[in-house]
């Protein structure tokens, strides 16, 4: 329980900080200007650092995980995605991981029954939940573009139209809001109900879920319930986009809660498991080509090495080799 309650308490406290700061201490400049700039700067620098750091480390061996038939004889059909031999094969493989969670789609569950007998069942819920979670977040982020540009970009407009397809509230209800909240709930529930998940989960697994829940929650409250006026919000975002340090206008406090939690997320991102967003593009088992017999892969830190040579071997066994009528190099 402690590992769930601590991150939950952390998120609650983090949400209260800007609420108190703005509502009672009038620190809207800090929460509306300074922290957002700092968070974005640290996020960009941190994420960039992580990527450069990974990319700077050598990949000494070709360690493709081959999940399909290799390229071999002409008449045997190669599985070019799961056993890629050309760069575009691997590109498709990685992009399918990124956009469709291909490996997770394979997921199944093993159950031990009496007998003893192992039974494998379909288990696509994690795949579906994960996909909904990530895609909803992406759509939500993209449709926020309307706050950052004077003219709402075309893609954000069409995304918003699609997202508000179920026009049942005022302002229009976003499908992704519901989806992401359900997905967060699902991801949380499976961590606490499945005994295996309960054991492997750490506070750092719950924290981002709660944090995202808090961000989405504050956003939803702002939009549908508190109905925070969006124009000053957009003005403030445009000011930030133009690197202005002018103080923000009158904005509902709930907005500061939303914004501050986003800033925390940005800060937390590069130094936590959330960096998997970048890592997935670099995973050697997926990005490399299964052509290690066809083309020599170079290990940058390979050094010359002394081995036990044939000569030494023959020196040790010459008499025995002679007796066995084995050809020898030296008499």
């Amino acid at each position, binding site marked *: 329980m402690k590992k769930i309650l601590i991150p939950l308490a952390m998120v609650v406290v983090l949400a209260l900080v800007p609420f108190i700061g703005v509502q009672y201490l009038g620190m809207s400049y800090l929460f509306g200007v300074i922290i957002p700039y700092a968070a974005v700067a640290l996020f960009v620098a941190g994420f960039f650092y992580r990527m450069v750091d*990974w990319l700077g*480390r050598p990949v000494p061996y070709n360690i493709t995980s081959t999940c399909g038939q290799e390229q071999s*004889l002409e008449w045997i059909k190669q599985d070019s995605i799961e056993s890629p031999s050309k760069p575009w094969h691997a590109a498709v493989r990685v992009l399918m991981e990124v956009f469709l969670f291909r490996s997770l789609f394979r997921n199944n569950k093993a159950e*031990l029954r009496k007998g003893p007998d192992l039974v494998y069942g379909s288990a696509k819920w994690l795949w579906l939940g994960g996909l909904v979670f990530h895609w909803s977040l992406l759509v939500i982020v993209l449709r926020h573009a309307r706050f950052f540009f004077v003219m709402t970009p075309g893609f954000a407009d069409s995304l918003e139209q699609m997202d508000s397809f179920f026009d049942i509230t005022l302002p229009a209800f976003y499908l992704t809001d519901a989806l992401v909240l359900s997905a967060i709930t699902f991801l949380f529930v499976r961590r606490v109900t499945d005994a295996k998940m309960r054991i492997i989960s750490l506070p750092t697994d719950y924290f981002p879920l709660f944090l995202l829940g808090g961000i989405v929650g504050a956003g939803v409250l702002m939009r549908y319930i508190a109905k925070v006026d969006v124009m000053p919000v957009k003005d403030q975002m445009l000011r930030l986009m133009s690197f202005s340090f002018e103080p923000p206008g009158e904005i509902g406090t709930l907005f500061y809660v939303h914004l501050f939690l986003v800033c925390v997320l940005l800060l937390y991102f590069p130094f936590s498991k959330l960096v*998997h967003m970048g890592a997935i593009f670099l995973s050697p088992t997926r990005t490399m080509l299964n052509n*290690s017999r066809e083309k*020599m892969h170079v290990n940058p830190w390979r050094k010359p090495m002394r081995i036990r040579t*044939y000569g030494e071997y023959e020196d040790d066994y010459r008499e025995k080799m002679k007796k066995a009528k*084995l*050809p020898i190099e030296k008499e």
Partner: protein
Amino acid sequence: MSKYLQKQADLQKEFDEKPSSLKGDYAQKEWWEMPVEFREGNFCFPAKPEVIEELGFPNPRKWSVTEEDWQLPEGWQKTLMEGMRERIKKYRSLKLYLDSCVRCGACADKCHFFLGTGDPKNMPVLRAELVRSVYRGDFPVVEKILKGFAGSRRLTKEVLREWYMYFYQCTECRRCSVFCPMGIDTAEITIMVREILQLVGLNNNWILAPVANCNRTGNHLGIEPHTFVQNIESLVDDIEELTGVTVNPTFNRKGAEILFITPSGDVFGDPGVYTMMGYMLLFEHIGLDYTISTYASEGGNFGFFTSNDMMRKLNAKMYHEAERLGVKWILGGECGHMWRVVHQYMSTMNGPANFLEEPVSPITGTKFSNAKATKMVHIAEFTADLIHNNKLKLDPKRNDHLRTTFHDSCNVARGMGMFEEPRYVLRKVCNSFHEMPENTIREQTFCCGSGSGINAEENMTMRMKGGFPRANAVRHVREKHQVDSLVTICAIDRASLPPLMRYWNPGVSVYGLHELVGNALVMDGEKKRTEDLREDPMTGFDDKGDDVD
């Protein structure tokens, strides 16, 4: 039965009492609070001091796993932490895989050791967390601010015991990496941790003794050149007695076209020797100009289970010998981890092999352009090509006494991607072939439970547990299709699956693919065949039978 083996009935009871993949009640417990228990049958004996010394590895001494004092060298923590930092610098994979796990749990029930033991620390995610927790503690500033939050811990003796236990309960089979959405490969982590443990003298004799043998004599079994030759010659005699055909293998012969290298288990172990007989019959059948080396007389590479350098050192003999003998290319026998090393590491470690030529089958003229750089061809590819070009006279009815299924070996499956070639060959040499359930074959294949050097007798209970998912899949086809023969292309499988079958599925025998090829080959000048290479009677070929030949 081995004293290190839990009685089948007891283990069965254990499974039945807790029919859940996760055994025990962990509601109130965290994994790092669970004790590590070394019991008879769940660990391998440490390497003998003289073996460690011969190899020049650190800290040779006599010690026992079950004793409190492991006689670790002064400053062992520092050695291990520095070893870890060094490898994190040298391998992007290690750093990336320590950083990017989201603990989604997709890998949890994919590990054969988890399915067989129900021990939470055998979930691949936790196996990696054993190291990750220490790695995270290696950032002191973050650790002080967020004490306990990130689940980090110090490298204590208890943690070290955990590492020693659970990184020798991983067979580097890579099944988890197939399911991981990040592509995290636990084998990478296991390989590194074993290499680090080596730095303070934590290892096992079942790995290091073969490594020392291989370095000295050329093969894991430590067979000296004259004995090696004698043994193959006795197989030649067996072949002659059975088939009336004389095969003529040559040894260390300069100027041969092809150097043939196979695991030494095929030369000395039962049932590997029958596979060796199959190879020799095949080569005789097609008149292949090949030679066998007594110096590079090992296809397998237990160095792979100790350290990167040792793997490279043992592997280097293949090219060294190929160059000395002046062959054109190398043909490799059936083996799992051998092919992981040959396919994914060899040219990087010891190439380029410019003294060799791009492999071309002298019989069919097929160019093996997929082996252009390494210049080493897998026997299943080679034979599949022969059959496809109608170069073999085969009578699959000679395997009618066997009802077969095929076990994909982990390394050949997930570290090479060879699925169709052996199946093609198998279908051509025998009439009865039934696949095991789809979640247990091809890229999802289960390990035999004894791979990566934990095939020791004293580790028997653990091996039977780890091999349970494989055995269970075999049982499935045994009940459904009366399968009685498990065919494989791996020498470790040939050594480890027979006891696994005896334990879980009595009546199922283990065969190498080329043993079945050898059975089916109709040789020039052969005598009337009534028995297979094991001297088991064939069906429909008895003396009075209606032999169609």
